[in-house]
């Protein structure tokens, strides 16, 4: 009798337990995964789902102005969309990675506007991107948009326009004179480009070539990058070393998250450095080496007395 009473008492508990198990099976981890997320966060997620790219690395002060006109200090892992304008201080530099695998690094005292960007891996022919370097210097390594829809990629440097001629991954450096939008220079490390200068010249540059344009003069004859100014040589060398192993599209959200994690103080989760490109060795050999005084210069046999 006592056992029967106990069994009848247990019945409702069993029903409750069974109900909870059924609920858990129907919505696995639901209550744990989204415990009362604020509406703003959900909106942010919806907003970042169409992110063009993210900030992969930063040094010095870098600012980003969004489409709505607000400007803020950029940080590693920040995602951005079309209409964003990046501005670097005199000691700043930033590397941006885009969804299609494209990579743009902005040097110090530069301004870059991402005018347009659309990338859908399921519909490659409709993808497009448009960038405008308004001042300073940037290096570009093209991604899937260029490979799959070459006409979809538009790049301008001041009042000059870049036409990428090579069908595969192309890497180059562009510079706009901060004093004049009609003066600038370009260096190609991989591939081939053509530049329509503001003066109306079409300048064709292939791998390891540098040239400049300025008002009132013909575009200069291309010269090897080794004869370019020091800053251009360094940027070209960097672009040569940061070619993707493949220009496969990137999952921006997870890559941005990984980049943010890498900024955590040690011992933090995630990799110690942002996940980036395969490192390629520097290939261009110097054309001339600086002269040294024979038998000395560095001092051999000459220290303290004339040779």
């Amino acid at each position, binding site marked *: 009798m006592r056992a029967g009473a106990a069994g009848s008492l247990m019945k409702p508990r069993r029903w409750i337990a069974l109900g909870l198990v059924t609920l858990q099976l129907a919505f696995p981890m639901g209550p744990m995964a989204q415990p009362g997320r604020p509406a703003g966060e959900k909106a942010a997620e919806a907003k970042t789902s169409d992110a063009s790219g993210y900030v992969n690395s930063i040094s010095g002060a870098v600012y980003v102005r969004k489409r709505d006109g607000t400007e803020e200090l950029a940080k590693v892992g920040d995602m951005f969309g079309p209409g964003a304008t990046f501005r670097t201080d005199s000691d700043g530099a930033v590397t941006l990675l885009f969804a299609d695998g494209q990579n743009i690094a902005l040097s110090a005292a530069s301004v870059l506007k991402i005018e347009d960007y659309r990338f859908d891996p399921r519909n490659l022919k409709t993808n497009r991107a448009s960038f405008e370097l308004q001042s300073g210097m940037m290096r570009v390594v093209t991604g899937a948009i260029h490979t799959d829809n070459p006409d979809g990629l538009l790049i301008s440097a001041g009042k000059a326009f870049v036409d990428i001629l090579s069908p595969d991954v192309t890497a180059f450096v562009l510079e706009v004179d901060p004093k004049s939008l009609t003066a600038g220079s370009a260096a190609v490390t991989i591939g081939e480009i053509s530049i329509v200068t503001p003066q109306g010249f079409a300048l064709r540059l292939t791998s390891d070539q540098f040239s400049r344009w300025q008002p009132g003069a013909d575009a200069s004859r291309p*010269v090897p990058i080794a*004869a370019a100014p020091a*800053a251009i040589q360094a940027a070209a060398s*960097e672009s040569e070393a940061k070619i993707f192993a493949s220009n496969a599209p990137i999952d921006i959200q997870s890559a941005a998250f990984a980049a943010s994690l890498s900024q955590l103080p040690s011992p933090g989760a995630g990799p110690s450095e942002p996940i980036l490109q395969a490192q390629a060795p520097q290939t261009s050999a*110097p054309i*001339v080496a600086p002269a040294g*005084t024979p038998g000395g210069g*560095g001092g051999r046999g000459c220290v303290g007395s004339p040779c």
Partner: protein
Amino acid sequence: MEELGAVVLGARPHRGCQLSMASLSKVTNAMARPNARVVAAAGAVLLAVVAFESLRLGLGGLIVELAQSESDRRTAPGRTAPKAELDRLAGFYADSLAFHPGNPWALESLGVADLARMRATRSPLEAQALARDAYKRFREALEQKPASPFLWANLALCKLYLDELDDEFRAALRHADELGPWEPSTQEIVLFASLAAWQSSDAAMRRATTAVLERGASRNALKLFGIVKRFKRLDLVCPLPGYHSIAAQDCVAQASAGR
């Protein structure tokens, strides 16, 4: 000492004639002893200063010498040394300059190391700063060795990397060419920098470039031809007889492509 005082002050002049040789000697010794001490002390100080200076200069020179040997040992022709290695080398030269500031040899070597570091860095800001540093070192070295064609050539190279193709750049090229017309490394740099700045060069500078090619044909033709070829300026060497043996094939190919 009393005698000395008497003689000096003339307290007992009446006994002056009676001064014996012994007492004179005593007087002389007494007079000389303090002076000798002073002289000896001054000499010792001088020797110490000379020894210290020699040690300082010697140490400075030794560090440059060691750094140069290290550089020669590690730098094979055509090999670009890693940046860390170059930084370490530059550190040696900087140490040497701490011992002997203004040593033109150390300045020249440090300038050369700065240019090598400039080539190795991937930071545009750092590259610019290193080129500027190298320029300053060559300028300082030139104050002591104004007749060195190598320093003038390196100065022109710095100006090129700093994108300052001004009168100073042209003057540096001219001095390098005038002071070392037969030096192979000077010829190479003068040709390289002149071709890089061809667009902004005047007729005289272009004539000087052709003259470098003509002079270099006898002993440095292969290197100079290599530079001209990298700049795709075969038109400069094809008419020169000194280059016919090495440039003939390329000249024919260019001529047929032009047709």
